[in-house]
C-alpha cells in the first residue's frame, strides 16, 4: 500500500515540479522584459505595462487560471487547449508565467533602481555601451540585491503550483486527495494527503539551502 501511494504521489509531484520549472524558465526572462517596460521612458508603454502588472498582481491567480483555461472556449467555438492533461498543463503554464513575470518584474525594478546612478555614469564616461553597462556593471549588483526577495517568491511559487488543481491539473495534492475519495483501489486514506506536505517541505528545504549558497557566493563584494 505504501509503495502504491508513494508512486501516485511521485507522479503528482512530477507534475508539480514540471509546472514549477516551466514557470521559472518562462517568468525569469519575461519578468525582465516587463520590468524594462515599466521603467520605459516612452510613457504609453510604461503606463500600459504598469496597468497590466496592477491587474495581474491585483487579482487572484486562481481566477486568472480559470479565465485562461475556460474563457477562450466560451468565446471561440471550441477550446483552443488540447484535450486532457496536456491542455491543462499548457493553460496552467501560461497563467503561471504571466502571473510570476509580473511579480518578478517588480523585484527586478526595485533591484535595478536601487543601484546608484553613479555606476551607470562611471560606465558611460568609460565609453561603455548601454548593453555593456547592463551586463558587465549593473546585472551582478542587481542579482545580489534581488536574491533574498526572489527566494521568497520562488518558495511561494512551489506552493502556488497547487492552485492549478482548480482546472484539474493532477499535481501532488490532487494525487494525495484522490486517496481520500478512492484511488488505486484505496479509499478513505487520510495520511497520503498529509504526506504531500513532506514533499513541499523537503523541496523548499533544498531551495532554501540553494539560495543561502548563492547569497554566500555573492558575499565577496558589497
Amino acid at each position, binding site marked *: 500500500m505504501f509503495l502504491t501511494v508513494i508512486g501516485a504521489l511521485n507522479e503528482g509531484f512530477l507534475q508539480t515540479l514540471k509546472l514549477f520549472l516551466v514557470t521559472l524558465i518562462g517568468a525569469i526572462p519575461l519578468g525582465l522584459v516587463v520590468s524594462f517596460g515599466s521603467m520605459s521612458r516612452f510613457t504609453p508603454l510604461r503606463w500600459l505595462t504598469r496597468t497590466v502588472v496592477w491587474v495581474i498582481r491585483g487579482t487572484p491567480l486562481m481566477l486568472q487560471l480559470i479565465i485562461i483555461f475556460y474563457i477562450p472556449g466560451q468565446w471561440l467555438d471550441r477550446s483552443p487547449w488540447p484535450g486532457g492533461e496536456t491542455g491543462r498543463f499548457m493553460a496552467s503554464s501560461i497563467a503561471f508565467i504571466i502571473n510570476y513575470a509580473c511579480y518578478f518584474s517588480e523585484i527586478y525594478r526595485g533591484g535595478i533602481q536601487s543601484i546608484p546612478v553613479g555606476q551607470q555614469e*562611471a560606465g558611460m*564616461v568609460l565609453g561603455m555601451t548601454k548593453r555593456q553597462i547592463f551586463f558587465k556593471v549593473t546585472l551582478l549588483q542587481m542579482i545580489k540585491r534581488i536574491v533574498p526577495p526572489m527566494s521568497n517568491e520562488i518558495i511561494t511559487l512551489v506552493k502556488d503550483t497547487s492552485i492549478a488543481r482548480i482546472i484539474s491539473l493532477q499535481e501532488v495534492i490532487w494525487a494525495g486527495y484522490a486517496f481520500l475519495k478512492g484511488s488505486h483501489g484505496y479509499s478513505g486514506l487520510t495520511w497520503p494527503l498529509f504526506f504531500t506536505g513532506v514533499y513541499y517541505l523537503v523541496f523548499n528545504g533544498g531551495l532554501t539551502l540553494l539560495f543561502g549558497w548563492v547569497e554566500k557566493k555573492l558575499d565577496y*563584494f558589497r
Partner: protein
Amino acid sequence: MSILEVRNIEKHFGATQVLNDISFSLEQGQALSIIGSSGSGKTTLLRCLNFLEKPDGGTISVKGNMIFDASDPATQLEKEIRTKRLHFGLVFQNFNLFPQYTALQNVTLARELLAAERGGESKEAIEAAGRELLAQMGLADRANHYPHQLSGGQQQRVAIARALALHPDILCFDEPTSALDPELTGEVLRVIRNLAEQNTTMIIVTHEMAFARDVADQVIFMDGGVIVEQGDPREVIDHPKEERTRQFLSRYSEN
C-alpha cells in the same frame, strides 16, 4: 592650437539657468582648476564636457575638431557620443568604482571591452598596463583587493588609474577629495600633483585652494553659473580683482 575650446556654454534645469555663457580654453599639458561655492555650476560644467548633461547652447572643440555644437544636431548623434566621451576622463567625487571587480579589473574592464570591439591589444598587455598604472598610484599591492576592502583614498586612486587607462586627452576631477577625511585627502592630492608634473592635461574642480594655486596653470572662479574671474592662479587666488572672488576666498583664509 588649444586642446580644448569651450565657447558660450549654456545649461538650464527647468527655469533655473545653471551655466551662463561659459567660455574658456585649455592648452595641452596644462592643469585648470575650477573653484567656487556649491551650486555655482562647476560640476554641471564637467558633466557637460563628459556628455553626462547636454548643454542648451554653445560649442565644445577638442584638438580643433568641433565635437559638440548645440545648434547642430549632427554633432549630437547618440552613437558618436560614446566615442567622443573618450576624449575625456572623469574622476567622481564618490569614486563610483565597480564593487564586484577587483582594483585591477576596475582599471582594465573598459579597455578590454574596447579592445574586444576594435581588435588590438591582448588581454595580457592591458593587464600589464593596468598593474603599471596601479603601481604609479602606489597601489601595486592592492591590485586584487575589492573596493570595499580599500580606504576611501585608495579607492579614489584606483578610480584615477581607471580613468587614465583609456588615455583621455583631458582628465577631469569632480571634487576628488570632498568625500575623504583630511588624512586621506593628502594621498590623493599627491597623486594628482604627480600627474600635473608629468604634464597631464587636467581640469580639477576643487575646494582645496592651496592645492589649486600650486598645481594649476589656470584658475576659473565661478559663481551663479558664470565665470567671474579667470587667469593665472597667483593672480586670481592671491590678488583677486572681483569683489565676489574676494568674498569667496576670504572664507578660506579665515580657517
